[in-house]
């Protein structure tokens, strides 16, 4: 069986980014269905992972789980706060020493291996833990290089499966970088082989420099900067503002003291007291400084995190890399892509930009780790979508929801406002200590919420829409921040339709399409009843029988082949037979 054409003796350094479209379908014997021999075909060009091996010794230090370390140290630290310093030091040192021994033992007892089909991780000092992970279950592989790790040429590798709930299924920290890359290629190779699309030869080898494959998207630095300025990362603002306020307080304090003293003196002298205020210019400078600092902080954080963001396509995988100091490099197989979310908050909408979030079913990459394109001009969104989703030209045509949905939107927005107004006006009557001047001053202003929320409700209604093609289903919603979710219909796992009492009276239905991954859900809010019923039935059919529908293709149910052929050259139907011949 090792006669497979491409996997003869390991070809030393991978010949430059080979992304040979023409060799795609030169399937060796392994391509014919039976998974190839475990070792021979999967052996990464340089390295062999069949023997269990340990992580890099540096993982004694670099592999410390931060949360665990904090948990372990917080109790002794707090407990000895009252004690003399030498005792605190002693206790902390003891804990550190014990921790060090535990870490060394943990490193010695933690091994991993990969035989081409199963990734095994054994660990545990007292109670042993053996984890085997079938390669076909792997959803996403991420290589993370922290700033310190990069200094020593190390990297961590994270493997996500659909099941992993809160933490990665396998998290190997830390390996020599070359090993991590080789392990990932080995995983990718055998994934490709299992999917029956053995790219004979050297399927574009992973290249740490990031040159392999075809670049799908690169986010220029000015967009990263703009993303940090317009994004939620400005939440650093409160902290900085707090600092600024303290600065201002320090400025005012002496002035007030001084003013009081002077008033007393003047009063004693029998003259009219005059008050000299604090230096307003100083206050203004302080506030401006705070603002500038917070924006600068947001920009620095954003640039370090998302600088050099680019997506490459290597064979059928997306390689998403980002980061300046510490870098992340995630691999998401295109066929594992579950949901694409296009988000536009008001600032970005005004400027004509959007962010795009790509979800695989990988469980743990919450928030931080999820693959998010920081900023993209709105007009480029369709192009990116056509790269992410096979045979999709862009956001499908969306249909607005019936006018009855406006009533629901108004209700949704006005109810909390009305409750707040009622509370502000009625509670002070009942509860004595709320009856203060402050509340009395606020009372009239609360009525402003009504028109504001009504406008937001109208905006939200106008954004409500959904659409479906034979390939994808899409839904849009949101008022201040508008989000459009797009899921391939073949990824829909289950469906829920909900009709509350009011929705029934208005002839509306809310449809939820569940896809794999934590919180991954496509919500069609308040669609017309018949539309929703039709969509429910259509998606059920797709979910029950996930054969990709490819309109242009003539040669039968090509299965995955249909999904992957020619989405870039536009002549998908033609390229496949040509390649095969």
């Amino acid at each position, binding site marked *: 069986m090792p006669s497979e054409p491409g996997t003869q003796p390991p070809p030393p350094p991978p010949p430059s980014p080979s992304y040979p479209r023409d060799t795609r379908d030169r399937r060796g014997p392994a391509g014919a269905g039976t998974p190839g021999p475990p070792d021979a075909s999967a052996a990464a060009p340089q390295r062999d992972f069949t023997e269990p091996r340990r992580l890099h010794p540096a993982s004694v230090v670099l592999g410390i789980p931060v949360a665990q370390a904090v948990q372990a140290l917080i109790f002794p630290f707090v407990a000895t706060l009252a004690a003399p310093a030498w005792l605190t030091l002693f206790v902390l040192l003891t804990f550190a020493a014990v921790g060090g021994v535990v870490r060394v033992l943990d490193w010695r007892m933690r091994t991993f291996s990969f035989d081409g089909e199963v990734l095994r991780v054994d660990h545990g000092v007292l109670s042993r833990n053996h984890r085997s992970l079938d390669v*076909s279950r792997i959803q996403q592989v991420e290589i993370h290089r922290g700033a310190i790790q990069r200094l020593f040429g190390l990297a961590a590798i994270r493997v996500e499966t659909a099941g992993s709930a809160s933490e990665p299924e396998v998290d190997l920290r830390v390996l020599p970088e070359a090993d991590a890359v080789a392990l990932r290629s080995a995983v990718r190779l055998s994934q490709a082989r299992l999917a029956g699309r053995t790219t004979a030869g050297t399927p574009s080898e992973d290249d740490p420099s990031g040159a392999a494959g075809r670049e799908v998207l690169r986010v220029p630095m000015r967009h990263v900067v703009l993303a940090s300025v317009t994004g939620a990362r400005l939440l650093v603002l409160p902290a900085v503002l707090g600092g600024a306020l303290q600065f201002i307080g320090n400025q005012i304090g002496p002035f007030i003291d001084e003013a009081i003293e002077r008033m007393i003196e003047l009063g004693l002298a029998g003259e009219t007291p005059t008050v000299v205020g604090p230096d307003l210019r100083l206050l203004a400078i302080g506030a401006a400084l705070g603002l500038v600092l917070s924006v600068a902080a947001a920009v620095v954080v954003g640039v370090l995190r998302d600088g050099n963001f680019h997506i490459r396509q290597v064979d059928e995988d997306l390689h998403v890399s980002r980061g300046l100091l510490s870098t992340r490099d995630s691999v998401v197989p295109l066929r594992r892509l579950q949901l694409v979310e296009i988000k536009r908050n008001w600032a970005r909408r005004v400027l004509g930009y959007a962010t795009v979030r790509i979800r695989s079913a990988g469980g743990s990459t919450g928030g931080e780790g999820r693959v998010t394109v920081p900023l993209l001009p709105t007009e480029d969104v369709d192009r990116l979508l056509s790269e992410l989703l096979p045979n999709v030209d862009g956001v499908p045509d969306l249909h607005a929801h019936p006018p009855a949905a406006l009533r629901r939107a108004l209700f949704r927005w006005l109810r909390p406002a009305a409750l707040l107004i009622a509370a502000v006006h009625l509670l002070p009557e009942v509860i004595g200590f709320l009856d203060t001047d402050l509340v009395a001053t606020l009372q009239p202003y609360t009525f402003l919420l009504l028109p504001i929320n009504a406008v937001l409700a109208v905006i939200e209604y106008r954004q409500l829409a959904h659409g479906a093609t034979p390939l994808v289903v899409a839904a849009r919603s949101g008022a201040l921040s508008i989000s459009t979710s797009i899921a391939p219909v073949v990824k829909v*796992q*289950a469906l829920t339709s909900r*009709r509350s009492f009011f929705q*029934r009276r208005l002839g509306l239905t809310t449809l939820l399409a569940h896809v794999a991954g934590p*919180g991954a859900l496509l919500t069609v809010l308040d669609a017309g009843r018949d539309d929703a019923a039709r969509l429910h039935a259509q998606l059920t059919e797709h979910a029950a029988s996930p054969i990709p529908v490819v309109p242009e293709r003539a040669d039968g149910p090509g299965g995955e082949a249909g999904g992957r052929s020619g989405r870039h050259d536009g002549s998908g139907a033609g390229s496949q037979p040509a390649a095969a011949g």
Partner: protein
Amino acid sequence: MTVQAGDDIPRPGLDDRERELAPAVITSWRLSAALGWILPSVVALVLGFVFGGSWGWLVVVLLAGLVTFSVVFYPPMRYRRWRWQLTELAIELRYGVLVRTQETVPYFRIQQIDIAAGPVDRLLELASLQVTSASASGSAVLPGIAAADAPRVRAELLARAAAAVAEHPGDLRDAV
């Protein structure tokens, strides 16, 4: 995958008609509603009489109304609304008094099936059956079917899931 091959599993042959839950589930719901009301009632009564003075009686009346409704009247209403069905492609659930819900989990997407029975359910010879897909939120729960039926339903679901998987070529079998 939970299922290896469709042929090994005997098919109990449940047909496609609409089904109801076991009537005993009403009793089970009544019991759990009654148990669930004990603590809130005590707290509300104490608060009502300590702080409300003569308003305490209003609390008693309100509480009595709520408890009567949720223990006596609501469970039968809920039962009447509950239907489940094994259609050609999927298991479908329709339920809900105020919010009508229709849940669909296609056989092909079934990842796991759990049968569970709490102490009350076991006294009443009931079981609940949960069908889970790969999605975190998309699962279907049959809250009260006869305990004797549960394995039959599960076997039927497994058989249908296996058949659905077997229909697809190798690289499409992976439901995620």
